[in-house]
């Protein structure tokens, strides 16, 4: 259960992969602003939890895992799908932590300074997602 930072993984991705996520993230943020103007903040709020990163990232994870296997002369397709499933499981845990982030903002934004609330909400997300991941790993290992 060791968490590692692997900077060399950045070299495995093509610049187009980063560009896609930049453009998609920008478009979702713009769309949220337009929805807020036309339909109000309640409707726009749903899209704050739109899966903006997930589709491009999970596709990239599948591709890179498959390519790593293929470089060793092995069939990588199944390994790629296993890696993508792992990524999706992590995203499910992250989304539960995102629920806490949203609830924190809902509770405290009306009464406290926004920078304090947003930063603390981000910290809540980080702690909650990490704790959920560690708990899930432990539960999986025990099974």
């Amino acid at each position, binding site marked *: 259960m060791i968490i590692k930072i692997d900077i060399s993984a950045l070299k495995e991705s093509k610049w187009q992969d980063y560009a896609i996520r930049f453009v998609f*993230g920008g478009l*979702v943020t713009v769309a949220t602003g337009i929805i807020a103007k036309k339909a109000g903040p309640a409707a726009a*709020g749903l899209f704050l939890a739109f899966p903006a990163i997930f589709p491009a990232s999970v596709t990239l994870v599948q591709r890179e895992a498959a390519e790593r296997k293929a470089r060793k002369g092995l069939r990588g397709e199944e390994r790629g799908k296993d890696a993508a499933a792992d990524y*999706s499981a992590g995203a499910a845990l992250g989304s539960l932590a995102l629920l806490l*982030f949203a609830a924190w903002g*809902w509770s405290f934004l*009306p009464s406290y300074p926004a920078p304090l609330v947003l930063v603390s909400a981000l910290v809540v997300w980080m702690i909650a*997602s990490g704790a959920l991941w560690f708990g899930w790993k432990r539960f999986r290992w025990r099974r």
Partner: protein
Amino acid sequence: MSELIPRFFIGGSVVSLFAVMGGILKPTSFAGLFGAAPSVAIATLGLAVAKEGNSYAGVECRSMVGGAAALFLFSVAACHLILHFRIRAWIASLISLGLWAGAAFVLFHLLN
């Protein structure tokens, strides 16, 4: 129009930052946490607070609770489609997006 361009660049930058952080972390399941990072939320709430104030952003957060619950269903569905039905990741994402939209719609009406 004038606010859309900075909104595009701020949103794109924050989303990219979280995506890069997810890209350098191992194992894969831990990196997956960043697939549900509050990237769009941070960018949008910051802009909302600057333009409309805290209460407005608070309303957005209320609906975001529904969106996050829908995102959980999306992620679980994608995981199952890939793991058990061996569907490609991008196809599983597309199918699960429909689930996100449906769940978000229902939860929106429950919360508002």
